[in-house]
């Protein structure tokens, strides 16, 4: 049976370097390692020839090229006869190669050295397996294929959810059930702060809810900025900085107003999948694993399907919540049930809020809590609609129209996690109620 490029998917992960042999016009061979080979389709591959001038010159003089590719799971080797077609230095294909190169360079600790200038496209003429002195170790190729029925069930479950928290939980549940990943985060895009904020989390010792990643930072920032999935499949050679998380990390929140990003000890593979709905970035689905090559091509595709579905659902949820009518207001419960006074401090500089000295959240979520407290202190109201909050803050934070629901969700989850004496509770579509254990005092004059 002849081999096809799609049979070689584990060769394109950039984990084990490929090898490229060329020959000059006068027949002198040249051989070097190659950081990344990208499969374009069943007949074409692209090579990132970012620093070997001789290889680039040879293929232009003599298009015949031989590649050795290595399966990142088994170590099996394949010889490919390929022919140079053309070079690309811009466009979607170039962007895809540049992004993959960035990830694969990061996993060997060379992201600063490797910068893609152009990529060469080749036609594949033949593929043969190189004889191996050993049998492929049984059990090396472990996991089953992604179950399409299970994926379909997860999509249906997502479709049934109407609220941001249910959508995010359903997405994380689907990731766990369909693909078996136990450590995952959903980060929601915050264009106001130029960051992505952890709003859903499973599998971490510390949830990291409220932690932020700059939109330009690392794998998650790259996925957000480029709108493309990006992964690393073998970080075993990368020196991990800050792996040991000190016990003081949580305590330092109050001083720094920064929540520590959750970390998985001994992580080997990571993937960041953009959540995009109608060309708008909603957030990023981020998954980690202690397994090598945890994210195969088909896993990546399944995650993209789930992330896209969740992004669409979140966007629809914002729209529906914004349109909710005030006739559904439930009977008001009693606020302030006899506890001690609760002191809330708001800092205008970053909209951070502290409840009884404990840092809760900042940004839009912080501004929302302040707003609700101001209204409550003014006229005793306890139930608030998305619509009125959107109107009140929309002038200062225009992007709120697209992500109020997820900001309220973040606020609610942080208050829950910190067991704060103030909680917010959903009481219907687009409507929440403020609950507190005692009288509220708002100090909103801080910078």
């Amino acid at each position, binding site marked *: 049976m002849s081999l096809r490029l799609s049979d070689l998917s584990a060769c394109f992960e950039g984990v*084990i370097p490929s*090898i*490229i*042999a*060329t*020959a000059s*016009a006068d*027949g*002198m*061979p*040249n*051989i*070097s*390692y190659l*950081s990344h080979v990208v499969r374009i389709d069943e007949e074409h591959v692209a090579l990132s020839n970012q*620093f*070997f*001038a*001789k290889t680039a010159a040879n293929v232009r003089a*003599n298009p*015949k*090229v*031989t*590649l*050795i590719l*290595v399966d*990142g799971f*088994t*170590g*099996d*080797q394949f*010889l490919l*006869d390929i022919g140079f077609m053309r070079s690309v230095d811009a466009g979607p294909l170039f962007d895809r190669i540049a992004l993959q190169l960035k990830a694969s360079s990061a996993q060997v600790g*060379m992201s600063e*050295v*490797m910068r893609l200038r152009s990529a060469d496209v080749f036609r594949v003429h033949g593929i043969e397996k*190189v*004889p*191996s*002195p*050993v049998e*492929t*170790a049984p059990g*090396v190729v472990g996991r089953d294929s992604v179950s399409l029925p299970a994926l379909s069930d997860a999509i249906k479950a997502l479709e049934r959810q109407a609220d941001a928290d249910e959508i995010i939980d359903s997405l994380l549940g689907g990731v766990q059930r369909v693909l078996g990943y136990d450590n995952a985060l959903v980060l929601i895009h915050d264009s106001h702060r130029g960051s992505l904020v952890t709003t859903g989390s499973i599998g971490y010792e510390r949830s990291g809810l409220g932690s932020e990643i700059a939109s330009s930072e690392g794998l998650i920032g790259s996925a957000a900025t480029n709108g493309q999935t990006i992964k690393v499949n*073998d970080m*075993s*050679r990368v020196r991990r900085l800050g792996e040991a998380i000190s016990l003081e990390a949580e305590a330092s929140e109050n001083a720094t107003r920064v929540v520590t990003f959750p970390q998985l000890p001994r992580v080997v593979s990571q993937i960041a999948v953009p959540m995009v709905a109608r060309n708008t970035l909603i957030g990023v689905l981020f998954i980690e694993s202690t397994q*090598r090559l945890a994210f195969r091509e088909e896993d990546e595709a399944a995650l993209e399907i789930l992330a896209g579905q969740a992004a669409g659902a979140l966007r629809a949820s914002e729209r529906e919540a914004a349109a909710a009518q005030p006739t559904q207001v439930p009977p008001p419960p009693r606020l302030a049930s006899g506890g001690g006074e609760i002191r809330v401090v708001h800092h205008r500089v970053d909209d951070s809020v502290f409840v009884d000295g404990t840092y809760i959240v900042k940004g839009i979520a912080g501004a929302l809590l302040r707003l609700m407290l101001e209204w409550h202190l003014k006229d005793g109201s306890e139930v608030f609609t998305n619509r009125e909050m959107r109107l009140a803050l929309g002038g200062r934070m225009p992007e709120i129209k697209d992500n109020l629901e997820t900001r309220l969700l973040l606020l609610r989850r942080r208050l829950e996690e910190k067991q704060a004496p103030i909680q917010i509770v959903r009481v219907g579509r687009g409507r929440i109620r403020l609950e507190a254990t005692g009288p509220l005092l708002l100090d909103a004059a801080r910078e």
Partner: protein
Amino acid sequence: MCIIAGADAAGRPSAGRGVGFDVLADRETLDVIFSAWQWPRLEADIRQTGRVAATFVSPSDYVSFQLKGAATMQDTGAPDLDRAERFMTAATNELESLGVPRPLIAPWLTAREARVARLDIREIYVQTPGPLAGMLAGARSQ
């Protein structure tokens, strides 16, 4: 690690992995050992055109050099097989220390049907990734 290329008379390159080497006393000639069982085209090409490029890489820091020149196939002797065994053991240990699992390395290195190509070194190039990559580090006048 060592990788080796040849090319046939039509300019089609071939490639394979080296499993040992020996720098000869003149310091200008190098024996590289490879498996003809695993890389049959490489042997055929060297016999046909007599041209070889061999790149040596230190896997821990990517320092790399490429040696090019004319080559002839030599008889394989017992010392070559010893060199191959030592090289394969050292390379496996080095890669394993860098996090590559041992079962993954096993398919790459074999001395089955070991062959020796004797390379008359004409040119040496720096091939370490970075600004000096491709720089001619040394050449011999003909």
